[in-house]
């Protein structure tokens, strides 16, 4: 025997299940009298600095069917590349930008849609700049442990080419699964980011 390190193990993950809305966005499903509003569903304040963008898409299973019961969270830096909240040591982020949003996909179409601002660049651990990106976290019935991925921007080709995470992708054809192309919706830049849980177009998910 040796001394014990006395570490604990992380609580094992369990699926969010089909009723994740009850706990996370109760107003969205008609439980209106418990919380004044749904956390993370508040729109991005108009005062937030930066280019306003839309990020939208759907989530597909291995048969190509759209998920209608998933919950999506995003976490991103502000326009200057600073994170609001805990753990940011480089300076104060834009006080009007929450950085975190959450949304259930539409119960019929499966579409999610975030109105946010385009993030700035954040340094990698060695000081190199990462390309602008948005962290995604997806949970749903049938997903045993939350799936994490990143959205990169199709119009940031130069910085995408030197991004340390994208450089780690061995099968280069899969890089495209993380890149959202820029389009437009009523004059507002709109990035379409579909997520494929399985199959030929399976999105790259992260262990990070």
């Amino acid at each position: 025997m040796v001394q014990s390190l006395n570490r604990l193990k992380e609580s094992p993950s369990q699926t969010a299940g089909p009723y994740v809305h009850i706990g996370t966005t109760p107003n969205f499903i008609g439980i209106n009298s418990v919380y004044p509003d749904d956390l993370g569903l508040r729109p991005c304040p108009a005062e937030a600095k930066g280019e306003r963008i839309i990020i939208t898409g759907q989530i597909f299973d291995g048969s190509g069917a759209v998920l209608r019961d998933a919950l999506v969270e995003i976490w991103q830096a502000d326009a200057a590349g600073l994170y609001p909240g805990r753990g940011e040591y480089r300076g104060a982020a834009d006080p009007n930008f929450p950085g975190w949003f959450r949304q259930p996909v539409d119960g019929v179409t499966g579409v999610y849609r975030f109105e946010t601002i385009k993030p700035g660049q954040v340094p990698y651990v060695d000081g190199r700049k990462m390309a602008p990106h948005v962290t995604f976290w997806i949970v749903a019935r049938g997903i045993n442990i939350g799936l994490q991925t990143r959205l990169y921007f199709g119009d940031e080709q130069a910085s995408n080419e030197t991004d340390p995470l994208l450089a780690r992708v061995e099968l280069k054809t899969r890089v495209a699964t993380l890149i959202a192309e820029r389009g437009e919706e009523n004059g507002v830049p709109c990035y379409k980011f579909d997520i494929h849980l399985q199959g030929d177009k399976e999105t790259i998910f992260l262990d990070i």
Partner: protein
Amino acid sequence: MRNAPAPNHNGGFYQRDRAWHPPAFTPNYKTSVLRSPKHALLSLNNTLSEMTGPVFGHAMLGELDNDLIRNYATTGDAIGPRIIVHGRVLDEDGRPVPGALLEYWQANAGGRYRHKKESYLAAIDPNFGGCGRSITDEEGRYWFRTIKPGAYPWPNGVNDWRPAHIHFSIFGHAFAQRLITQMYFEGDPMIWQCPIVMGIPSKEAVETLIAALDREATIPMDTLAYKFDIVLRGRRSTMFENRMEGN
């Protein structure tokens, strides 16, 4: 002080032990079959994008947010065995995680959820919504009052039932710690018959999700209590670590 600076726990988070968690593909839980990625995950050191996370202030909480017996009630208390659930949120080094947001949701005492997709014939309790939330205090503690949820059948096998459980969503100090899990109850034989639970590879890991009946925390003649601690990923110290400029 002659030594190098003391450990400062602001490094990257410990690698997630994927062999401890349920794998994505657990065929006895049928929905996982088409919703499980087949490629290996891309592993990368934490960056600021994972080492940061949103902050939720105690000010956002309403007085009844952690009282599921009352927070939806209009004509009387929610029906069912009255319980307190309490515990601490810790990291893998046993340090408390203060300021963690916990959101919890559950079926009513009959095993019925308040959700339009729910079709179990057990009755809806008009005084029970089924959601609540807490933010841990300086010692990482949380507590809430609810009714013990019932077991319920679900469409997987022709006769699969979920053990009584409460769902938990937890935000720690960083997005790397984001976690959703479920709490089960001591002594429930159905835990070991559940395809969702049994996706967890080891008995030892399952047992960490089973809350203990806590007689010392009960309120005599009023409310039983269960203790449920939650562990989030720990964090490397930065002793002797080469750090980037300004870090």
